[in-house]
């Protein structure tokens, strides 16, 4: 049995969308461990000065995602608070032999990411009213997308390691994985899928503070290969409800990609790099 809990403050204006994103994010922890969510409980903070219909929309978004995940929403708890917050506590099941850890990367593995990155930067641009409608919509859609299909596609394959990409940014999670397994991860920055226009916004300086914190954390472990600055910003960009990062044996990568494709996901899957024997630095950018 897997038990998880996650909740946060609104990242988009639309309450129904926020509910979906927060629920997708909370459910993701179960998928990242190789599990299947079964029961969910709402966690709600809501101010009494806001229209209760907004709360209804948030909960409706959450309930729809729980349903899409095939789990049951069994209730929840709410408290009064100045700022709205929403999330879930999720119970899921996984076979003990099939629990994904973030520590199992092996040299020769291929790294596959199931969602494009850049949501932190695009959300900052949205706040600055500089984001295009298209970019804002893509990001909301990707954040609200469930990692269910990615989890299902992976079920038939050997997964050496898996994590979901969240607040530490892609590089932060890569550092953790490399450290835990005693290997070096090579990331091919041009192969990573990015949200449309995220590069433009990053160059405009619309980079959230969390990205700099992640960068400072990752820097000592980084052979940055002199890649353009904007890639570092995006690779360190904190993600809300990001995708799954799989480390799979090279021989199985094509099969997993094939199965991911068959799932017709609404996010972009990319092969972002490979696992090498441990070198001077835990992360090598190319």
């Amino acid at each position, binding site marked *: 049995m897997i038990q998880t809990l996650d909740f946060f403050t609104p990242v988009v204006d639309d309450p129904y969308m926020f509910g979906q994103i927060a629920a997708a994010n909370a459910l993701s922890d179960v998928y990242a461990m190789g599990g299947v969510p079964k029961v969910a409980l709402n966690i709600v903070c809501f101010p009494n000065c806001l229209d209760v219909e907004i709360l209804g929309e948030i909960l409706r978004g959450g309930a729809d995602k729980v349903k899409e995940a095939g789990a049951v929403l069994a209730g929840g708890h709410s408290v009064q608070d100045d700022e709205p917050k929403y999330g879930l506590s999720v119970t899921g099941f996984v076979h003990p032999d099939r629990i994904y850890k973030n520590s199992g990367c092996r040299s020769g593995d291929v790294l596959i990411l199931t969602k494009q990155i850049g949501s932190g930067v695009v959300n900052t641009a949205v706040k600055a009213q*500089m984001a295009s*409608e*298209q970019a804002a919509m893509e990001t909301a859609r990707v954040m609200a997308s469930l990692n269910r299909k990615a989890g299902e596609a992976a079920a038939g394959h050997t997964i050496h390691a898996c994590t979901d990409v969240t607040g530490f940014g892609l590089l932060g999670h890569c550092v953790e994985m490399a450290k835990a397994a005693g290997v070096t991860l090579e990331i091919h920055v041009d192969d990573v899928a990015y949200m*449309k226009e995220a590069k433009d916004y*990053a160059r*405009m*300086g*619309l*980079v959230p503070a969390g990205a*700099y914190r992640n960068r400072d954390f990752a820097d000592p472990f980084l052979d940055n290969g002199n890649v353009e600055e904007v890639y570092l910003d995006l690779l360190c960009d904190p993600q809300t409800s990001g995708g799954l990062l799989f480390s799979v044996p090279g021989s199985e990568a094509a099969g997993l990609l094939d199965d991911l494709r068959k799932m017709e996901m609404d996010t972009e899957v990319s092969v972002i790099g490979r696992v090498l024997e441990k070198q001077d630095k835990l992360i090598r950018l190319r």
Partner: protein
Amino acid sequence: MITVNAMGDACPIPVIKTKKALGELNGPGQIEVLVDNETAVRNVTKMAENSGAEVSSEKLGEGKYRVNVKVGEGVSVETEQTQRDSENECGCTDEMAVRGNTIVVVSSDKMGEGDEELGHVLMKSFLFAVTQLDELPDKMVFYNGGARLTVEGSPALEDLKNLAEQGVEIMTCGTCLDFYGLKEKLAVGTVTNMYSIVETMQQADRVIRP
């Protein structure tokens, strides 16, 4: 020298303020930006450098930083105008662009295909709805059948006069007025020609067609 005080402003406000200042500068000069956190220093630096400016920064004290932005001679800084142009290439609809330059092009005195009478009613109602917009269009261009709307006896004349009073430039195709024999009857706005019409459409950030 422009001073931008962004103390106490959370990301991304300092970037927006600095961008605006660069637009005001619109040429060589200096801007100093005061901020209270390092993220703002890094983001302002990034934006200004990518706009072609020379940037240096210093820590003035606990929670106080100064970013110096220098725009040299002959350096073309990406201002809001050029920014807007480039953003529009990717279908941008942000507030700046919408406000930038919106035009309404009316090519008929009816709206949509179908019943003629209904088409007239819809067009009148469309033009009234334009008067109710929060952001009025910059210009309205009328040609072919649309020329019947800006002349005496037009059912939409009141609304169009109202728009003109509020600064909306109303232009009607001269050839069309001639063709329909309405030249003497133009009741609102000015007469225009094909060159101006093409230019107006080309320069528009957004064209609305009923």
